[in-house]
């Protein structure tokens, strides 16, 4: 872990990973979209609208994954005080908020033909909405404080407190058991989705993950550069 705390080493590593992530992203997105639109069966109950799943489910997975990235980097930032961990949390938050918004919007569009309504106050929907608010709060606290070091640590405390919500989201569908269906892919007794639908879903999940890596590294590098420029400006002012 400590090896990657050096920003210069991180930038070198990120530059090496980036091209591969782009290749994986384009490849899996193209193949996954082709499968999702043309080479996967329609559902016997849901018809064509089942194809929304190939965007909705990966977005929902990523909304939780990104929050876990923020929570882990917040923990590292608080315990070991690595500036890079703070930067990681800050860089990941808007991406996670976007994934959460995407999951909510696609879910609403899928809910209208299937459940007859865009929105219900069901356990899973409500807890994902809470997750979206948590992202907003996390980003707001970054903006509300002038001292970046302090803002980062305050945001980290909030992110760790909010991480209590992640298991609630994961298990909400088993606990409340309302309109949203229970977990179908990741469960102990094996997936209940047929392979012909699982494969495009899997491809899209990898594409979303690769997209996250690209934007995440890109935003982290931008943040490192921004801080470098701020330091250089400060030196210039104090030097003259």
């Amino acid at each position: 872990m400590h090896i990657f705390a050096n920003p210069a080493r991180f930038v070198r590593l990120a530059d090496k990973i980036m091209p591969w992530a782009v290749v994986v992203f384009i490849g899996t997105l193209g193949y996954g979209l082709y499968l999702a639109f043309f080479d996967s069966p329609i559902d016997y109950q849901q018809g064509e609208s089942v194809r929304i799943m190939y965007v909705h489910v990966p977005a929902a997975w990523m909304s939780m994954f990104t929050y876990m990235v923020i929570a882990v980097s917040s923990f590292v930032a608080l315990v070991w005080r690595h500036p890079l961990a703070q930067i990681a949390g800050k860089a990941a938050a808007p991406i996670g908020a976007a994934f959460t918004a995407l999951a909510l919007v696609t879910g609403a569009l899928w809910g209208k033909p299937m459940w007859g309504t865009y929105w219900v106050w069901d356990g899973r929907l409500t807890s994902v909405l809470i997750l979206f608010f948590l992202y907003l709060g996390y980003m707001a606290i970054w903006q509300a404080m002038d001292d970046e070091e302090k803002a980062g640590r305050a945001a980290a405390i909030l992110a760790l407190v909010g991480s209590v919500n992640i298991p609630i989201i994961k298990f909400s569908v088993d606990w409340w058991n309302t309109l949203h269906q229970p977990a179908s892919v990741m469960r102990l007794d094996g997936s209940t989705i047929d392979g012909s639908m699982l494969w495009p879903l899997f491809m899209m999940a990898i594409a979303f993950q690769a997209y996250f890596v690209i934007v995440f590294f890109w935003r982290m590098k931008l943040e490192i550069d921004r801080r470098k420029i701020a330091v250089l400006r400060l030196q210039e002012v104090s030097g003259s």
Partner: protein
Amino acid sequence: MNASFAIMISVIMRDVRLGWSQGGTGTMSLSFFFIAVTLFPFGVGPEPQVLTRIAPGVIWVVALLACLLSLDRLYQADYEDGSLDDLALSPAGLLPVVIAKILAHWISTSLPLVLLSPLLGLLMNLPAEGYVQLVLSLAIGTLALSFIGSIGAALTVAMRRGGVLLSLLVLPLYIPSLIFGVTGIDAAIMGLDVLPHTALLSAITLVAVVLGPIASASAIRLALE
């Protein structure tokens, strides 16, 4: 241990006295609670069935907002006049002080709401079966609200306009308490078992009691640096 206990008692006494002195937060949140609840019959109409249906939710939401209103002053007054620095240097450490301040906040703002809630239940036409659970769930639930809210108050203590941000940070974390507080009262009204709801509400409160002071103390240390 005894020293920290003595400090806690004196902080609680001091804060409760301050909360109930002239212009303190205690009387103001109580009046807010009363007035805000009475707005609902004007808004939704005075039909008794409608009021019965929404009574548990309205009373809970307004209690939650009343708690939120007084939160931004929880640490801010002490931060501004410097007594928070003093308290942080106390031999017992910051943690007992934080716990004491949260308990004092609960005693001076939420406990009066809990005691007043049956009267508002009466005004909102709450059925007789719901009163015990209304008081019980508010008593357990508002404790969690104070402990969770303290984290937001501590994070925003150094900000000049922290109040709006405070509600953005804290309200999402309040939702689980609100859900189980209200479902418990609904269950009591329908004659169902209230134990599962009360148990879940208590579990949330216990988690908040453990996590709240630790997170608040580290956020205050951050602000005092």
